[in-house]
């Protein structure tokens, strides 16, 4: 039965259904209601986890990683400044090959202070060795948590589940909360091969000299490569069991499209409406929502986008001095390919600026009406 709930509440159901065992928690907007609600669920027994009120985000992830290596399934959540404060432990957790699942409710990085959504916080962590999966709906957020444990415990890399701050974290939608016994059959208890064990003592994360460090990194790289297929496989199995699947990229009307919009997160939901309108007018416009950003699904994207004449990349982020990050990665994916669509770069929705239907229509119009992109990325919504 469907219930109305926010994205953050949907995530707490995903965490509880996944039977997380240790939850170190530290508040930060707009993630906070996740850990507030989990604290209630732990207090009244709906969630059987040990809930630890740590004193910082750095400690939240340090605590989660240590609990994970002791054999527990762990969860934590953060946003923006908190994610940046965790940065050292984000690397550490991936280097330790621990299946930690963490939600980041996307929020702009200060300064100046902002609590509103963009993707610069999580994209700044793209080189740390975590998988990154960006969600569009509250339902997808719940489902992705359950999938994330299966994925991370298979490849032994941590998974970051991304939801747009406020647009998804605080917006209520109908969500189907699956039954515990079905989730249990999809997600077996975590039973790690390697853990801290007094009966079989080993030393984890000791110094690795140059001859061995590269082996650790190379194995992590192989695991990340393996994750490309594992994410798809887990999603297919999830769909078979629950009737919902999302893919590593989520496409709409792409097969015959002349123009494809590429974006991540909730902007895709708005784009869907606009694209339907354009289709009604006979314009061949499609949508490609990038759901899995790490590992980057280059071949899947090239497959889908090669057929279009033009693609319009809507980046809710910016790497100053380089451009929109998704656009840069897509350009890299097309390097050396003979068939390349024209790529138009747009930066929009920075720090909670609305991405409206009108704004997306403007992007489509610009892309339809220009043969080639002129100059660098176009920033939308900057007041004159």
């Amino acid at each position, binding site marked *: 039965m469907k219930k109305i709930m926010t994205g953050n509440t949907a995530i707490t159901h995903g965490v509880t259904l996944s039977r997380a065992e240790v939850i*170190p928690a530290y508040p930060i907007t707009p993630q906070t209601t996740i850990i507030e609600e989990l604290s209630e669920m732990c207090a009244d027994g709906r969630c059987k986890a*040990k809930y630890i009120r740590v004193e910082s985000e*750095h*400690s939240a992830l*340090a*605590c989660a990683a*240590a609990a994970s*290596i002791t054999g527990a399934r762990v969860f934590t959540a953060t946003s923006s400044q908190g994610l940046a404060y965790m940065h050292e432990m984000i690397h550490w957790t991936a280097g330790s090959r621990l299946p930690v699942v963490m939600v980041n409710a996307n929020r702009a990085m200060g300064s100046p202070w902002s609590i509103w959504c963009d993707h610069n916080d999580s994209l700044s962590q793209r080189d740390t060795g975590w998988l990154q999966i960006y969600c569009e709906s509250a339902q997808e957020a719940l489902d992705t948590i359950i999938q994330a444990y299966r994925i991370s415990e298979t490849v032994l890399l941590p998974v970051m589940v991304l939801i747009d701050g406020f647009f998804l974290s605080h917006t209520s939608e109908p969500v189907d909360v699956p039954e515990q016994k079905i989730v249990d059959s999809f997600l077996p208890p975590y039973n790690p091969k390697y853990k801290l064990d007094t009966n079989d003592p080993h030393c984890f*994360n000791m*110094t690795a000299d140059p001859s061995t460090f590269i082996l650790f990194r190379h194995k992590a790289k192989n695991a990340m490569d393996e994750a490309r297929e594992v994410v798809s496989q887990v999603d297919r199995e999830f769909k078979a069991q629950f009737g919902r699947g999302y893919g590593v990229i989520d496409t709409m009307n792409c097969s015959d499209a002349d123009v494809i919009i590429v974006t991540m997160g909730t902007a895709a939901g708005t784009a869907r409406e606009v694209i339907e309108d354009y289709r009604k007018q006979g314009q061949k416009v499609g949508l490609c929502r990038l759901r899995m950003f790490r590992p980057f699904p280059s071949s899947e994207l090239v497959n889908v986008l090669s057929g279009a004449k033009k693609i319009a990349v809507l980046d809710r982020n910016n790497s100053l001095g380089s451009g929109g990050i998704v656009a840069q990665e897509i350009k890299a994916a097309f390097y050396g390919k003979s068939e390349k669509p024209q790529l138009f770069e747009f930066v929009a929705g920075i720090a909670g600026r609305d991405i409206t239907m009108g704004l997306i229509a403007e992007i489509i119009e610009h892309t339809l009406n220009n043969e080639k992109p002129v100059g660098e990325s176009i920033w939308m919504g900057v007041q004159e």
Partner: protein
Amino acid sequence: MKAKEFDKEYLYSGHGCCPGCGIPIIMRNVFHALGDQTIVATTASCFGTIAGVFPVSPLKLATYHTAFASTGAAASGIRAALDMKGDSKTTVLAISGDGGCFDIGIQSISGAAERNEDIIYLCYDNEAYMNTGIQRSSATPWGAWTTTTPPLNLKTQPKKDIMQIMAAHYIPYIATASIAYMDDLIRKIKKAKEIRGFKFIHIVSPCPVGWRFSSELSVRIARLAVQTNLFPLYEVEEGERYSLNEEPEKIPVEEYLKLQGRFAFLHKEDIEQVQKNVDREWKRLKLRIDQSSFSLT
């Protein structure tokens, strides 16, 4: 005197300590006092470095290295996971140096102490960042030379009073200990093992390289630190009940200072200043001990 032989070893030879280092003396005895059912959380430090290079470790205890600032948080996570598995017997031992405790790690140790996590936190204090080559920490004493407090700019602040900071958390048990008083050290570790909640043990760890003394003097210098009242041996229960474990001998601090090259730049009046500081600190401690013996019910 013959060194005590253990029936079981947890820190084997082949570790990377410098000759005369206090760490192996501390760890062999602490590990032996705690036994097999112990999990260690440690961090960037001399200990973290001497504990082997992959794939060989001299440690025979399950050990997890975390990043520098997070020993208290990592130990909390290990405890939580053990508790979830129904294992309340395994001791979680957090180990850091003074940098990882007094400085960069103070947030996570304070957080873990405030939550009264059931762990033992052992700070071996060699009074500077020795692993990176003798840089000043907030545990470095007044007047000491380090590579970042050179002779023309010696440390002009007193050593941070970590025991008072930990006492202010009102945790079940905190204690100082010394490698020159091994029976006392082992007793404190065994006592900490039996107490539930957060335990903090502060052990001074002489460093021949950083303190500039000949390596055979480590235990003698550790003993002089206690005998001169620079490092009194005491315990505090619940942040309130103070007890002194070793009566002072009131040996002048100069006897301690003159053995160490790091204090070679001090003038006569500086040494008098150190003596005054030590006397004042001792009076403060004595007051707490005397007060706690009758004022609390």
